[in-house]
Every structure is written in C-alpha cells, then in structure tokens.
C-alpha cells in the first residue's frame, strides 16, 4: 500500500513537472491549475506513503537513506506550497517540482536498511539532527530555484534581450526577497541540525566534532556558504545576483553533502 501511494506521488510529481513546463512555455491557465492539482494529489499520497511506511517499519521517516530522501522531497513540496500561497509565483513550480520528482526518483535506489537502531536517548538527538537538517535542506532547495529564476531574469534585463521568460518570470525584487526569506528560515534550522548532530556524536562517545573530514567538512562548507548569505545580507548588503549565485552554489554543495551522508 505504501508503495502504491509512493508511485502515485512519484507520477503526480512527474505529471506536474511536465505540466508546469508546458505552462511556462505555452501559458494555458488550465494546465497550471491541473499541475497544481497534480502536486496536491502528489503531496497527499506522499503523506500517506510516509505514514504507512512509518507504521510498517515502526520508526520515523528519517532512518534509512530512502526515507530521508522521501522526507526531504515531502518538505520541499510543503515549503513550495507555503511559498506559492504567500508569493503567488506560478512558475516557481516549473523549477521546484522537477527537483522534487528527481529526489523521489533517486530515493527509490537508496538503501532501505535501517542499520543499528540506537538506544532512545541517542535516538532523540539523531532524530532532531535529521529532521532539522531536512527542513533546512528543503528551504535551501527553494532558494536554489529562486536563485536560478533570478539569474535567468537578471540576464534578460541586463543584456536587454527581453525574451519570453522576461514576461513570465516575476520581478528581481520578488525573487531576491524569496531567496532571502527561505534562507532566513533554512539557515537557523540547518545550524540547529548541525548542532544536534554534534550532540548525537558526543552521545555516541565520540568527540563533539568528529573530524571525519569527508563527512564533516562539506557540512562546514555548506554552513559557511549560507552563513555568508545570511549575515552578508544584513551587514554589507549581499543581495541580488551574488545572493542568487551563492544560493545555487550552496545547494550544489548540499547535494554533495547529502550523498556523502546517506
């Protein structure tokens, strides 16, 4: 049953991705509404799938690599819906939903082995670490989409070649604002996720900062990149094109970190 609802979600996201792409190019309002409906259907079956899967395995959706990827995709859709509701950027779906589909697709090939389930106190910190980090990553993925849209729009205005995307994409100000808002939400959560991860490490009788270079360094880099955007905006006015570029760079690093961790 959880597999059926997973497939429904996967194909809904695929349909919505194609639909949003068609809408981006051909501007048919019906296609946009249908795609919105497909995402909603996807989210419902996605939620059902996570619920059923957790009921079957008896642990939360943050234990195996498969679950983590699926949970990440779920949070991306939730944040996407909130953003869509607040900003009404119809074409954001064209950039976010394909990403959701890809994360879902990748999750199919990831390990479903739970490994050793640690004792309860340690498990709490591990759960906190993973959930907070996943929400942070989901927020960063929206910033990534906003960043790409910003660069496309910025290029059009700067080069004075105003193509079809110029008219369809929102203003630079809105995209920059969205980028900032989601990083403002994502960065503190990611930081907390980082810290709880370290606490988990100490509970596992390891050093606070386990210097497993391959695993920790990319996290530090991700933290530095988003920290730079977060504090840079407030102090020196790091915004616009640079902020968009950092959001994209950050997310590429996130993807790298994600694969190192799972």
């Amino acid at each position, binding site marked *: 049953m959880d597999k059926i609802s997973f497939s429904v979600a996967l194909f809904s996201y695929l349909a919505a991705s194609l639909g949003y792409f068609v809408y981006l190019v051909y501007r048919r309002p019906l296609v946009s509404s249908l795609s919105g409906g497909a995402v909603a259907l996807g989210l419902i079956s996605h939620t059902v799938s996570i619920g059923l899967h957790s009921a079957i395995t008896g642990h939360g959706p943050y234990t195996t690599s498969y679950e983590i990827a699926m949970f990440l995709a779920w949070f991306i859709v939730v944040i996407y819906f909130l953003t869509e509701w607040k900003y009404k950027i119809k074409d954001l779906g064209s950039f976010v939903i394909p990403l959701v589909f890809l994360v879902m697709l990748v999750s199919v090939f990831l390990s479903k082995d739970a490994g050793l389930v640690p004792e309860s106190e340690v498990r709490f910190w591990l759960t906190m670490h993973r959930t907070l980090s996943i929400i942070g990553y989901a927020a960063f993925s929206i910033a990534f989409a906003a960043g790409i849209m910003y660069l496309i729009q910025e290029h059009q205005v700067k080069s004075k070649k105003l193509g079809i995307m110029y008219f369809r994409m929102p*203003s630079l100000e809105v995209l920059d604002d969205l980028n900032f808002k989601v990083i403002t939400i994502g960065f503190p959560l990611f930081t907390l996720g980082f810290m709880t991860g370290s606490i988990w490490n100490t509970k596992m009788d390891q050093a606070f900062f386990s210097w497993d270079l391959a695993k920790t360094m990319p996290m530090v880099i991700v933290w530095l990149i988003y920290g730079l955007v977060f504090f840079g905006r407030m102090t020196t006015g790091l915004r616009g094109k640079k902020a968009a570029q950092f959001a994209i760079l950050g997310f590429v690093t996130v993807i790298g970190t994600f694969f190192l961790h799972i």
Partner: protein
Amino acid sequence: MNSGPNLILVGVNHKTTPVEIREKLAFTQVKIEASLSQLVSSPEIIENIILSTCNRVEIYARVENTDRGIQLLQDFICDYHGISRGNLDQYFYSYCDNQAVEHLFRVSSSLDSMVLGEAQILGQVKDAYSTARSFSSTGMVLNQLFEKAFNVAKKVREETGISERGVSISSAAVELAKKIFEDLENHSVMLVGTGEMAELAAKHLISYGVKTVYVASRTYERAAALAKSLNGCALDFESFKEEMHRADIIITSTAAPTFIVNEEMISTAIQKRKNKPIFLIDIAVPRDIAPEVNELENVYLYDIDDLQNVVNANMEERQKEAESAMEIINQEVTKFNYWFSTLDAIPTIVEMRNRAEDMRAFEVDKTLKNMEHLTSDDKEAINQLTQSLVKKILHKPTINLKKKTQSHDGHIYLKAIRDLFHLDD
C-alpha cells in the same frame, strides 16, 4: 446557412478610410442615440448597434434580408451625414453572418486596432453595446453576440500575450521598472533634466504608484516648476550627484554634450544603497550616462535606442500573439454559429411543444371530468404522468431538429415538422 433573418455589419475603419472621411462619418453620442431608434423603426432592421470611435464607424445589425440590409445601412450612414453615396462606396466594407461575427470578435479583442492589443477598444465596444441596450435597439441575437465578444476579448487577453508587452517608450520603461522592483509604490524616481519625454515617463511611473520624485535641472526654476507639478522635490543641479543613491529609478534627459554620469558615481551610489538595484533610463541624445555603467552589478541602464529596440521587439511579439488569438477567435466563431443556426428551429420547437401541451391538457380535462371518484392526488398523478409522457416523446425530435437545422437541408426538416403537426393552420 441561415434562412431567417441575418447578421450584417457595415463600416469604415482606419485601414480602409482616411481620417478626413472617417471624421465626417463619425457618430457622436447624441447622434448614436437618435440613429438607433430611427434604424430599429425600419421594417428591414430587427436589431442594431452603432460603434463609433476615432478609428472606426460600424453598424452591426440583424436584418430581414442581407443585401437590402447592407444597402440600407450604407445609405443611412451617408444620408445621416449628408454625404453622397457615390464617393464613399470604395471605403465601405460589409460582412454578413460568420464573417460579421469574426470581425466583431477581432475588433473587441483589439486585433483590428491601429496599435495591436490596445485596451481601449473593448471599453468602447462595451459602451456602444450598453447605449444600444438602453435604447432597446438590441434583441436576443445581438445581445448574445456582444456578450460573447466580451468573453472572447477577455480570453484572448488572458491566454495570449497580445496586450502583455508595452509598445511605447514609457510603457516599456514602466514594464522594466516593474520587472526590477515589482511594486513601484515604495520606490522613488529622480529626473535629471526636464525633457518632455522624461516628464511623460515620470508621470507614467507615478500612475503606477511611485510616490517620491526628485527633479534636478540646470535651471533651478524649471526643476522647481516640474517638481511642483509632479508633487516632488527639486534638487540643486550640482547636488544631484550626491543624492543619486536615494533614487531607485533615474531618468536623465539633459542637453549636456558629454556624459554627466559615470561609472564611479553610480558605483558610489550603489554602495551607499547597500547594493539595492538602480534602474537608469537615459533618454538624452547625446547620452548623459556612460554606457559602462551597465556593467556594474545591480545596475540596469537603458538608453533611448535600447528602449526603442524593446518596443520594436514587443510589437513583433504582439504580431505573433495575434496568430494564437485568431485560433481562439475561430473556435469561438464556430461556437457562436452553432448557437445562431439553432435559432431557426426554436420558434418551431416552441410551437410544436405548445400544440402538444394543448392537446394533452384538453384530453386530460375531458377524461378527468368523468372520473369524479378520483382523489385530487390521483388527478395530480395523472396530470404529471401525461406531462412527462409528452416531454419524453418530443425530446428526441427537439434535439434532432436543432441538429438538422444546421445542415443545408435544415429547412426541409422544419417544413416537415410544421406540416406534420399542422403548425401553420
């Protein structure tokens, strides 16, 4: 297609007729009101609407006979304005039935306008329609036609980019400003130089919500006068360079022979603004702002040629969008024709149903009179039974008759029904 009364349209527009003729044929509001009643009192004309704008004079009508109707309307337009027909024949165009429908859909969707996609024409068509309605010169067909035309225009506007792109320098500038800043309300504009076009662009921006306006000019009095009229504040010409960081949009239009704004100045301004974007519009010739300024991050510089290029590209895009608009219009014309062609069947259907209902009521009355022992509930049940029986029997013939009347031999079916039911007795 239609054996009954037909739709026609007679008119002149900016494509067929020079302005010196058009202005003679134009109807003022008072003339329209007088003409509508005069036309509808003619036995040939069942319904009519007069559309008169600076680019077109058109009369839409439903008439008893197409050819006679067209002649009559052309004569009317000439006679009403006291011009002899002979000189004007070459200018008139006339369409009937689906061509007339298509023409109206094109006009209200602004495909027939001088500036493709302009928004004004729809309002003018709506006004013409409501004037005609208030003088009761319209009926079922023109009401349906015009209401449909408004829907089509809305659909074209929403589903194609025909009105999306600005086709004047100042509207292209406003569009750019809105793509950089979204909401113009909390943004400010600075005018450097008081050229007419700069003033126009500023007014356009103000109409989109810009509240703060700064004006600088070499002659302070001119700056002060323009600032007053724009509800802004005047700056001393020497000080504008220090104040540039305050403005989100800067429009330059001075007569200076060399660049008065360079990269360094804008670089300083952008630092003071903590990298908030600046949109520079240089409409001066020779240019006021060094082109390298555009290389700075978060700075967008458009000179007059850039804006003109945008306008030209937008024009071309509107032309392309007009093709997809025509697809929508063609579909809607077909739909309207379907509705229009079923109209012929409607009087016959109504008569057929009335005839059947009369017979039913008569027979039921007769029977129930001899059945006094029935309760009123029983009688009601019999009544309802016979009603639904008649309805059921006539249902298929009604549907088929509507379908058949759209074919070439539709009138044969109508005649057959009328004969079979003795409707013409």
